[in-house]
């Protein structure tokens, strides 16, 4: 099915998909805008206006160091999204490859790899990420690597299950009878049939990645000051929750919208597939 037709089916078939897609698009537009333009540099401090409310000069006010909140939101949302996408990219590609090989070939290698994956799965991914960050050091690229590795197990499991199921189907036997090579069978015959499941796994994994980034930054081992990310902003503003609630409220809302948009879209896809 072409991407356009697939989209049309989801759009028509699921209210959740429609709502999710609208929210997701709005968030992505906001992030794209942030990449092109911010009213002030996100780290520039205005000494005269700390924790100010909404004003013409600072549309959404400022934080405790007098930095423009709108500018920090625009740039911080981008950072969070970038880390989440990078995380999912690493997790999905590595996890899918592992899962595909394990599911398709089976045997001892599968047994060993899946036991390791099971062991990793037993820890919450944020805990694993903590471990890896302490090994690699902090900063956005290290966070992506750490979270990416922490996300491998869930993708490996999902994709392995799909491959296990699909490899027994007649179209695969038929391809083997025609003498089609294993790699081609895996990636040209079976993989397209797992895309639906993979897509919703990516969208749901994405939410976890956003939360994990926010969590790490909140704990102070993710994105480092003075850079902005949604988690970082929440962490910095918590002391001023009562004096300037908007400094907590706005990044929080943005985080919620980001997750809501992607998870509704993912659920919508799942719903239409049933």
């Amino acid at each position, binding site marked *: 099915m072409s991407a356009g037709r697939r989209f049309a089916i989801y759009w028509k078939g699921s209210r959740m998909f429609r709502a999710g897609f609208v929210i997701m698009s709005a968030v992505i537009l906001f992030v794209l805008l942030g990449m092109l333009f911010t009213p002030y540099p996100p780290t520039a401090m205005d000494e005269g206006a700390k924790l100010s409310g909404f004003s013409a000069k600072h549309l959404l006010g400022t934080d405790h160091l007098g930095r423009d909140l709108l500018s920090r939101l625009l740039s911080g949302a981008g950072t969070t999204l970038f880390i989440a996408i990078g995380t999912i990219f690493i997790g999905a590609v590595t996890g899918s490859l592992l899962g595909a090989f394990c599911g398709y070939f089976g045997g001892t290698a599968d047994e060993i790899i899946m036991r390791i994956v099971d062991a990793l799965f037993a820890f919450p991914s944020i805990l694993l990420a903590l471990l890896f960050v302490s090994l690699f050091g902090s900063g956005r690229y290290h966070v992506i690597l750490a979270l990416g590795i922490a996300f491998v197990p869930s993708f490996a499991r999902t994709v392995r299950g799909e491959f296990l199921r699909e490899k027994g189907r007649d179209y695969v036997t038929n391809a083997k009878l025609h003498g089609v090579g294993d790699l081609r069978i895996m990636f*040209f015959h079976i993989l397209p049939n797992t895309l639906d499941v993979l897509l919703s796994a990516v969208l749901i994994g994405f939410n976890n990645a956003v939360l994990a980034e926010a969590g790490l930054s909140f704990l102070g081992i993710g994105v480092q000051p003075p850079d902005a990310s949604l988690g970082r902003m929440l962490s910095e503003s918590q002391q001023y929750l009562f004096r300037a609630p908007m400094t907590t409220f706005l990044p929080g809302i943005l985080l919620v919208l980001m997750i809501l948009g992607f998870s509704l879209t993912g659920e919508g896809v799942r719903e239409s597939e049933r």
Partner: protein
Amino acid sequence: MNAEAPILTVEDLQIDFHDHQIPETAVYDFDLSIRAGEIVGIVGESGAGKSLSALAIAGLLKRHSAVKQGRIHFEGQDLLHCERETLRGFQGDEISVIFQEPMSSLDPLMRIGPQVEESLTVHHPEIGSAERKERAMEALASVGLSDSKRIYESYPHELSGGMRQRVMIAAAMIAKPQILIADEPTTALDVTVQAQIVALLKKINAEQGTAILFISHDLSLVRQLCRRVVVMKDGRIVEEGDTETVFLRPSHDYTKELIAAIPRVEKKGTAGRPSLPETQERGRRPILRVSGLDAGYGRGRQILHDISFELYPGEILGLAGESGSGKSTLAKAVLGLVGVTSGIVEKHDLMPAMVFQDPYGSLNPARTIEWILTEALTKGRAGRFPGGRQTLRQRAAEALAQVELPESFLERRPSELSGGQRQRVAIAEALIGRPNLLIADEPVSALDVTVQAQIIALLEKLRRETGVTILLIAHDLRVIYRVCDRVLIMRDGRIVEQGDVERIYFDPQESYTGELLAAAGITG
């Protein structure tokens, strides 16, 4: 009660589905009346609405999207418009149902006894447990389960498919219902077991006077069992009447088509078939010679024992037997997909291709027909096909033309095709690399009877035109008779008998072959 007055009448039953924006009508103007002790058959192809009508009568069509109109009268009640409680009072007591799949219609975690007793427990709580057990034992014995004590204590997984269906019938009959609705009760069973179940239904009808509404796509079964038959197509009744009259003098075109689609087994001698007689075959070199083959899945799971046969170029060899007899395993052994323990498989320039039973599984659902066809041509052993994309597309279109499908199908995906069309594409895909052996594993058993006839005719045509050798695996002996030159009869992984189809069908040497033929209603 007056024997002539109907016990159940259905008038103007209409069933609509509101799943999609546009309501779909699945059953129109369905009228039916059943008299006490009568056996009425409903036949039709999948999607004809026969099961839906029966479920509506039993009050089991509970999907909220289904809207039912009309009247169903039973014992002075309109079952379509009565309270749920009233309906429940009839279900399992006066009206019982048995389903197609005996594997899933019994609760796997419950012993057989309580399941058989259930409708007594629900509808006649006044009956004590000792008497209930006695009645259950009787019911089990009356459906031919002589070891009723052991069966009573068993779990469903300890019984065979045929035994489970007998248990279902016992459970349905225990409260002595007036009507038994049997929805394809034999479809999932082997042919010899099918015959036993049909005989059992006949016996129950004769001894207890229970009326039976028998739903089936198998016309020969309906003819054996039913006195009156209703033919359905696309949600409508197209013909109704006395079974023999309908079979001998069908008045509706669709009924004629259905009856013509049943492959006939009538002695036609060598004149009727385009094949070469056995003696002439012997002079030719076989493309495949199997001798003393033992094979199976790993240690301790040997399935095939001492298999020997030859396959000659251009012939259609049938492989018949019940499920579990090793037919598909033999095909896999020929293709090298299962381990051969001992014996010889001699292949002479063999280029095999395969057609599977389920065309829903054998075509990659994520790809277009063009991709599927050209993939077989370029990426496989036949590989490195010379020529660009245009030539490839042309070859794919030719392959479709060979199976009588238009070129426009190249753009489509398997999900957009009907079962018969998919099977045609699967055959095109198998033949596109120009193999000399086509192994067809139950290629028509998942299809409706009229579509079956078309696919069989197609296979015959392709053999004529391309000279491809075909190994046809089928449990349907009529299909085998229609197309095959020779046949192997298999049982428990061994070949029981092999030879010319005419000889095997009209002069079987082994008693098992005779049993199989008799069970399929073919008598030599």
